[in-house]
């Protein structure tokens, strides 16, 4: 590439002193270009915890993240009492699932982890999924022991703080202030990108999945 550039410069008969002046910058530009090309996705972070056993919507054990080894995983963080943001995130995950199928992308898995395990039992997660016509073929809703869920959230930088509360006849209903996120995990189990869950750009994520597939 440098030779090619030099040839062009020769052809244009630019003064040699100009070439000398700009050669270091040309080298620097090429180095930056090569380094940039090697790192196609912005993140390359290990999850930083040993696998934990969670339960899916059918109460089956899911060893997270081991079960997703050598697969591309999109994981979102939700709670089923959320009326606005989490349903938007879930809808985006459905759109991604449909797009992955349409594009015939292989070995892509989907998971939504509840940060409200006390209320979000497997049965409740199943109900949440069923009413949204979720295709469970490569999609799991996950819950688990509070300590295990917290371990995952802490390591993946997800915050979920009980906040806004409302009294009903059945007692107190609480809502969360929470991180709005979908995380992309590569085949090597590392975080490769993070997106806003409720406002995710479907095509951007599909592009990232294709990058991981290459």
């Amino acid at each position, binding site marked *: 590439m440098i030779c090619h550039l030099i040839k062009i410069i020769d052809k244009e008969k630019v003064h040699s002193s100009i070439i000398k002046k700009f050669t270091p910058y040309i080298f620097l530009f090429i180095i930056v270009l090569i380094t940039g090309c090697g790192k196609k996705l912005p993140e390359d972070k290990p999850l930083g915890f040993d696998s934990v056993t969670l339960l899916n919507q059918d109460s089956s054990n899911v060893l997270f993240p081991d079960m997703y080894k050598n697969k591309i995983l999109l994981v979102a963080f939700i709670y*089923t*009492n*959320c*009326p*606005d*943001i989490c*349903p*938007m995130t879930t*809808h985006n995950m459905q759109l991604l699932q449909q797009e992955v199928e349409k594009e015939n992308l292989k070995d892509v898995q989907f998971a939504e982890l509840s940060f409200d395990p006390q209320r979000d039992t497997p049965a409740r997660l199943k*109900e*949440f999924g*069923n*009413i*949204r*016509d979720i295709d469970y073929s490569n999609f799991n809703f996950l819950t688990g022991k509070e300590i295990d869920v917290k371990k995952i959230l802490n390591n993946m930088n997800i*915050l979920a703080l009980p*906040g*806004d509360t*409302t009294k*009903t*006849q*059945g007692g107190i*209903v609480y*809502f969360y*202030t*929470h*991180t*709005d*996120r979908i995380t992309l995990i590569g085949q090597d189990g590392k975080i490769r990108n993070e997106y*806003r869950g*409720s*406002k995710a750009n479907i095509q951007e994520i599909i592009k990232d999945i294709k990058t991981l597939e290459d």
Partner: protein
Amino acid sequence: MLILLSIFTILTHTPKINIENAWVRPAGKGMNSALYLSIKNNNTTSDILYKVGSDAAELVQMHQTVEKNGMAAMQRVKSVTIPAHKTIEFKPGGYHVMLIELKRDLNAGEKISFTLYFKRAGRIKVQAEVKHT
């Protein structure tokens, strides 16, 4: 005289507040959902939506989702002002009418009845479709 009466009748029957695109998210009994809609105020003065009622949920409240630094939170709002000749959108990620502890499943395709209470326009009944979006 008849013409004047007709004009008067038309004018007085023109809806001053228009409710459009009302829809609700599907959700199961005991869970929460949200109503979204557009409120168009055709009046020359502002109006205030101060309450929404429905028998579909134990509790119906107006809320606003606020997102800051990647964190999403909800705030209860007591009322929403609809300025004259303006439209206020209740949409995902913004204002929404929260349906807390649903009394029954809300399945896609169903219609749910709501009553909107305005300071000036009074009660307006709305039918909202349950749909996935």
